């Protein structure tokens, strides 16, 4: 299995000095291509910081982060933007769609930033929306859709540009149980199609859906194991 994500001895310290908070305390982690990983921890455990680190949204205080063998821990803002655009598809708890844009336009956004031409962009975005079952909602704005539908738009946006990693931060946190199931089954399907999926959650029920479960507490990885209950 090829290494996709490699974190080496990463620390993230907020407020260095007397009241310092060690959100990540010498964390090392390797995730291979095509894995389905859940990172679970209580609130304040450092899982969000780890997610920001993995998503190139934040830089570590110390340690290194290799993505596809490339050191991304000390890049400039613009280089990080580029990496996020090419390598990572984000699925956030709060969906994070732009309210003034339609579903289709939201999905097209990362492709615009990548510089994909109009025709191709539209085709890719429509295909992505089709694959999450929203072909009839393309011209709707976020506030005209249910939470589950909005999260599906967000998933379409994450996969439209076919990034190697899907990074989902509490993807079902704002959803009712019916929509949650729907979203989880879509994420599972994407994994089965060959994508690397990383879910960050505090919910053991969600974590149980993944193949590998990493538990984090007080900024340290306390357990890392294959899920014995995993079913394809």
């Amino acid at each position: 299995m090829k290494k996709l994500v490699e974190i080496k001895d990463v620390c993230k310290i907020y407020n260095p000095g007397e009241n310092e908070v060690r959100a990540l305390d010498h964390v090392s982690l390797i995730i291979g291509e095509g894995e389905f990983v859940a990172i679970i921890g209580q609130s304040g455990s450092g899982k969000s910081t780890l997610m920001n680190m993995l998503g190139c949204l934040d830089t570590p205080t110390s340690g290194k982060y290799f993505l596809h063998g490339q050191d991304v821990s000390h890049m400039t803002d613009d280089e990080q933007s580029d990496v996020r655009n090419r390598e990572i598809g984000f699925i956030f708890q709060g969906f994070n769609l732009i309210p003034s844009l339609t579903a289709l336009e939201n999905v097209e956004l990362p492709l615009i930033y990548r510089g994909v031409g109009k025709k191709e962009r539209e085709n890719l975005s429509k295909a992505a929306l089709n694959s999450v079952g929203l072909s009839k909602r393309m011209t709707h704005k976020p506030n005209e859709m249910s939470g589950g539908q909005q999260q599906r738009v967000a998933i379409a946006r994450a996969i439209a540009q076919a990034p190697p990693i899907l990074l989902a931060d509490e993807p079902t946190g704002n959803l009712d149980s019916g929509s949650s199931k729907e979203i989880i089954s879509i994420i599972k399907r994407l994994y089965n199609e060959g994508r690397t999926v990383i879910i960050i959650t505090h919910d053991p029920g969600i974590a149980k859906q993944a193949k590998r479960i990493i538990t984090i507490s007080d900024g340290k990885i306390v357990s890392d194991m294959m899920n014995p209950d995993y079913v394809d």
Partner: protein
Amino acid sequence: MGKLGEYIKSAIKQIIGNGYRTLMTMLGIVIGIAAVIAVVALGNGMTEFVQSQLNGIAGNYGIINIDTSKTSELFTQDDIELLETTLTDIKGVSPEISGYGKVTTRKGTYEANVSGGSESFLHQMSNGIVKGQYFTKQQVDSNQRVCVMLIDDARKIFGTEDAIGLELDITLYGKTATYTVVGLRESMNRMYEFLMEGQDYYANIEIPYTSMGADFDYYVEKFYSLMLFADQSILSDRVNEAKDLLTNIHGLRGTKALNGYSMADFSEELDSVLGYATSFLLLVSVISLVVGGIGVMNIMLVSVTERTREIGIRKSIGAKTGAIMTQFLAEAAILTLLGGIVGIIVGIIMAYIICTLIGFKVIVSPTSILGAALFSILIGLFFGLYPARKAAKMKPIDALRL
């Protein structure tokens, strides 16, 4: 670049989406640009008005003087003939002598300014002859006692416009002679009335310089000043040529004894004075434009704060600093451009209304329109820069946390 088109499209969406706020933000720019356009039009109209009115009073002439402290030479009748034959496209050359005295008609006695000239003296004012005719070369050459005045003066001193053939006594330096009216000039324009307002009345009487010499003991064999009449476009050049010719003939090279100036010089001076007035007004309008620009900056800053989350989302999915910056700059530029366009329309309407009310000709110059449009975009870019940078420099993680 296709990306830029996308940014502009999204900027337009944003602007339309915030309709009311857009209008209020644009208002400052609209007022500023409208003021600039209206002021420039007003300035142009004023310049044009003053100039046409002045030309209306004075006609187009130049004057060549001899400085008698530097030479004893004086101009002669031969000089006049030489200038008139050499400079073929001028209207004529005339001596100019004048005196202040009295005229007596059947109605009464009035103060009068009497000027003597040749038949070319017709051109010293642009008011044409409306009754009778100007005195002729024969009348000048034979010292005839004929005179010309404004129709207004005729109305005043004779009590009638039918003054051709009427007689009046001219008294200068204790001598009196009786002259016959042969021609009347058209009324003066508003500018003249304005200039003459509050002054004591006097009549302007034009007579042949030869008669003036014969009747009132003026020395008219030689002159120390000549008037040259020509169209304004060639006036300056002809006055200079005449000056050079006369300098050579009288052997005055290097003495600077001759001075030449023309109405055209005077117009230029007037132009520059009016230019200062216009510049001052322009400065005031530009200040209002800058205030409008600060308004735009303010709103853009509010917009950046409001849309922090959107910026975070955009950055998290791969927008670079430049992309965010372009988006906000485009928004500010379009906002001000729209304001500029509305301002231009309002400005033109204002210019029409104001100029028509005052009675100026409406001159809206294309340069001022183009300049205003360009300037409004520049204001957008300049005042949009700070908010746009602020937006672009946000860390995605900070922007998303809200």
